[in-house]
């Protein structure tokens, strides 16, 4: 094996080890610098939690991975975001395809004002898939994955807006799963839900990491410690500390992290 080839094999295995990579990423909204140069690697099939006080840039950073900031007025970024080793901001990247690979669940449940079935089938339909049997099968398996199937299987044609908040959020997760992404970004997915619905979603996240790489922004520190493998603490647009969740919550390196998780500020 030639030296060049060997190196490229090593390089690609490094890339495979990390699902998501950010290299010296800086973000501005007009003149305001929201992200001040962050580099981090996120491992596949793990749950990675982003914590930090409001306005620390964790949501902005999360939304870089599926380019949801593209339509924000005054948004400007520098640096590199790689998924499976390829730069997602390259000119020849199709942003719609990217978002099918990188699903997103939002803070407030946001089902479409359509039927339950149509919500879950939406992502497949916009890809031009029309086969009814296939759609039905995929809708069923997606709803089963989020443990919603038994609750709604007789009401698939009812409006999704008639569901409870917790059910709506699980529906939104099912909608994301239906297109079989490899990464799921979650932006405070339980902040609008009651404790029981929150517990159900947490349980779900725990189960989903076998098949997906999950990145979750949360304000709830117990939640981060319960469900995540790794935790990143953000403060004022900087990544302060990033380590195993256990380490962050029991023995953080930095004083700022300790102050935050013990509730001294934020």
């Amino acid at each position, binding site marked *: 094996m030639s030296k060049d080839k060997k190196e490229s094999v090593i390089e690609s295995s490094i890339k495979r080890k990390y699902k998501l990579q950010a290299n010296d990423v800086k973000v501005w909204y007009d003149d305001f610098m929201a992200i001040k140069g962050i580099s981090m690697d996120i491992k596949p099939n793990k749950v990675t939690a982003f914590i930090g006080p409001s306005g620390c840039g964790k949501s902005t950073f999360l939304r870089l991975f599926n380019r949801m900031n593209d339509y924000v007025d005054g948004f400007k970024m520098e640096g590199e975001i790689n998924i499976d080793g390829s730069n997602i901001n390259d000119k020849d990247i199709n942003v719609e395809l990217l978002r099918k690979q990188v699903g997103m669940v*939002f803070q407030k449940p*946001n*089902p*479409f004002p359509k039927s339950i079935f149509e919500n879950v089938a939406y992502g497949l339909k*916009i890809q031009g898939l029309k086969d009814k049997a296939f759609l039905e099968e995929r809708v069923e398996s997606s709803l089963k994955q989020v443990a919603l199937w038994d609750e709604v299987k007789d009401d698939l044609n009812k409006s999704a807006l008639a569901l409870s908040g917790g059910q709506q959020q699980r529906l939104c997760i099912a*909608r994301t799963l239906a297109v079989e992404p490899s990464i799921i970004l979650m932006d405070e997915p339980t902040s609008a839900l009651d404790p029981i619905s929150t517990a159900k979603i947490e349980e779900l996240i725990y189960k989903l990491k076998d098949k997906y790489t999950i990145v979750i922004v949360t304000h709830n520190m117990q939640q981060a410690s319960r469900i995540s493998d790794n935790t990143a603490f953000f403060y004022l647009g900087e990544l302060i500390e990033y380590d195993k969740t256990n380490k962050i919550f029991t023995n953080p390196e930095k004083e700022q992290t300790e102050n935050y998780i013990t509730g001294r500020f934020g």
Partner: protein
Amino acid sequence: MRKLKELVIERGLLLSALITIAVTVGIVLVLSIEAINFFSEVSIIDFITDPEWTPLFSDKHFGILPLLSGTLLTSFIAIAFAVPVGLSISIYLSEYAPKSFRRTIKPLLELLAAVPTVVYGFFALMVVTPFLQSFIPGMSSFNSLSAGLVMGIMIIPYISSLSEDALHAVPNSLREAAYGMGSTRLQNSFKVMVPAASSGIIVSIILAISRAIGETMIVAIAAGQQPRLTFDPTVPVETITAYIVQVSLGDVQHDSLEYKTIFAAGITLFVFTFLLNTISYRIRKKFQEKYE
């Protein structure tokens, strides 16, 4: 002293509300009474079924159909032109255009509705008709196509502006959901935003239809004054509104049967616009419930 002031203000506000209602009731009453007088002389069956409208000739016929067809034809042309154009504008402004562009262009579009309709009428007669005649030989100088198209231009802002408001009112979270699922802008617009704003869009279209049916000046100037039961857009027609203008301004004797025809025509118009307004009110009420 303070209490007295409050009382005066309260009564004053009540009075202005009552005056508005009284005027409306008065209009409906006058229309109805005169129309009933008219129908005591002319059978309502003839009014609805007779294919000719010649109350000012010696051989009198009182069939509303020719006027109704004129009104519907010009309104249909206007709507067929204004709905696709107005909707495209609203979708572009709400889902594609940068915010700053939207802020500049929307008030400019709304200016279209502020142009006096008499100006539109002459624009139709002097500019649009000669232009169309160069494509359609044999087109009459007065015709419903030209009047309808110009009326369409006039009602574009009703559709574009109100539909844009409806699209803009759709929660941003739905837009994020659509893009997050990998929708293109076009898919976001037509599969998510338009269905979500459909009731507001329908209301805007109904209001525009209502405006087109009631429009007077453009059709009186550019569509001609010949009641004719036809759906040919190249020949002169007369709308209900144009007929009312013609008789009101003419030398028809008050209290004559000819004069009363305008009330019969007026009440027909009123029934149509009243129905449309009721439908749009219902839809709007349903729409509000859905989002609250």
